[in-house]
């Protein structure tokens, strides 16, 4: 884009100073290209922002390092802003404690669900302080809210029977 812009600029100067009116159409063409490229770039950046916003709903408030590596500093800043505004909104709902609306994306059917472990994950803490060892192909019956995060990450799989 820069090359196009510089060429355009030199032509404009020439036209203004030297009076060569034939250059106007080239200038116009380059200007249209510049505008189009700018629109494409803006659409791409906007799409990235939408995906980053979806990441907050998918992965929670801490992003894995692999994803963070691919985001620019400004995008990180935007993400933090979004996180903050979402948190303020959530706190304002539901009384004193606020309501975590990122859980229960689908209406829940029961308090506890049966899950199956798809890969070796390691120890996982349960509410009463004890932990469960998640090994491949072991099945567990755990409270739903603890498992949702892991189900979204693909470590656990909800077993319907």
């Amino acid at each position, binding site marked *: 884009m820069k090359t196009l812009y510089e060429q355009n600029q030199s032509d404009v100067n020439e036209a203004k100073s030297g009076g060569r009116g034939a250059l106007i159409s080239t200038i116009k063409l380059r200007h249209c290209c510049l505008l189009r490229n700018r629109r494409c770039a803006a659409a791409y950046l906007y799409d990235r922002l939408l995906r980053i916003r979806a990441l907050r709903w998918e992965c929670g408030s801490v992003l894995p390092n692999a994803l963070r590596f691919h985001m620019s500093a400004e995008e990180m800043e935007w993400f933090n802003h979004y996180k903050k505004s979402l948190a303020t909104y959530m706190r304002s709902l539901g009384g004193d404690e606020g309501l975590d609306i990122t859980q229960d994306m689908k209406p829940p059917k029961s308090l506890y669900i049966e899950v199956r472990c798809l890969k070796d994950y390691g120890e996982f803490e349960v509410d009463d302080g004890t932990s469960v060892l998640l090994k491949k192909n*072991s099945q567990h*019956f755990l409270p739903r809210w603890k498992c949702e995060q892991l189900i979204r990450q693909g470590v656990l799989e909800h077993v319907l029977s």
Partner: protein
Amino acid sequence: MFVSDFRKEFYEVVQSQRVLLFVAWDVDALCACKILQALFQCDHVQYTLIPVSGWQELETAFLEHKEQFRYFILINCGANVDLLDILQPDEDAIFFVCDTHRPVNVVNVYNDTQIKLLIKQDDDLEVPAYDDIFRDEQEDEAHSGNESDNGSEPSEKRTRLEEEIVEQTMKRRQRREWEARRRDILFDYEQYEYHGTSSAMVMFDLAWMMSKDLNDMLWWAIVGLTDQWVQDKITQMKYVTDIGVLQRHASRHNHRNEDEENALSVDCTRISFEYDLRLALYQHWSLHDSLCNTCYTAARFKLWSVHGQKRLQEFLADMGLPLKQVKQKFQSMDISLKENLREMIEESANKFGMKDMRVQTFSIHFGFKHKFLASDVVFATMSLMESPEKDGSGTDNFIQALDSLSRSNLDKLYHGLELAKKQLRATQQTIASCLCTNLVISQGPFLYCSLMEGTPDVVLFSKPASLSLLSRHLLKSFVCSTKNRRCKLLPLVMAAPLSMEQGTVTMVGIPPETDGSDRKNFFGRAFEKAAEGTNSRTLHNHFDLSVIELKAEDRSKFLDALVSLLS
């Protein structure tokens, strides 16, 4: 110790806790596990389920999880060995063991605090009395302490000494006699392995006591019992008794079918008692295939010989069933032929010497076209569980098999049925080749057969349940085919290659095939002794002690030791 009130001493104890379930790899354990899972899900008991295929897996899984749980439930594993010795648990760990393996180890029976056995005591257990086996060690030490006191006067001392010496020798002799008696009692008790009531039935009983039993749970109990019958683990009489028990439950849950006015819609689940044919998978296969691949008919007709094939044709002609009809899928057979099929087959079978063609069993109907006999489900689940896996750990198969027992996973069940057909065909072909090439040789006190590496489908027989089924069928066919009267009463030891890289074979020993056999198997102890005697590299990993893994090089010396042990 034995738990007398399952509800109070077992269920209510674990209801508010998190438990760890260890489940062994057989269909009965899977069914018991499904029933227990259903109960736990109803009451929101948090549990973790770990499949274990042998003692080593049980130990490793226990070590990994023992910090996190206090209550452990073992299904179809752990009753026949000293659990505390093997697992070395903490003081406050409590084990609930629901196992069909007998004899129950005496330490498990008499431990009051940590081991609770979920086993009905009216199963003929014959546990030796406490005093015959355990003796208070402190009694002896107190007596020997008294003996070291000295008297005051020399003459008194001498008579005192003499008396003491006499006392000591008497005590030592008594102790030796007691120990000899103890060894005899324990040897008699632990000599034979057999199986008790199905764990699935025990769990169903628990559910019934709590009034939480459902038709689905009843079906799982039926499948568990049928698995024991298919694998010849229980006697015919016990099977019939248990079927009677389940029949009462079935009529209680499914009585609405008889009532004409309030009958359930056709596609609702219902379980019905059937006096149906003994042919494996016949409703999902063609009648001809089923007749050829069921052990009972194949052995009686001697289908490995040309003469046998002719007899089969005679049999079909006798009933008036055209070959074309019989060879197509059962569901597409003419309705007029299917109507009286069972009675026709029973009559003709009687003429050909097969008196027990029909057997008491149950079937389940749900949806408009899904109908399964209990034995169909048993074969399907067994094949799913023991299918040779291409990659991934063995527990994938376990999970598949567990899923196939739910009614919503019918595609897995049908897949299992296809695998079962393959397995049955392979079994019959292997038997035919073994008998035609005289691979079954008599070693003296037992028969021996070994499958070579290059035999087709040999990879299907490396797992214990498939190999046991193959050996039982082989023995039955051999008994029908041989003229040697002595050989008919011999037990069979069978070996199949397990892993090429490690050079191991799986070896299985099954008791002799007699009409009134009580299915007691002495090969567990025999294998142990033979292995010790010859220092063979064996792995007694399976919960059934009569199945071992052995290095191929040690095979001949192991067999020699076994021959000398048993003759």
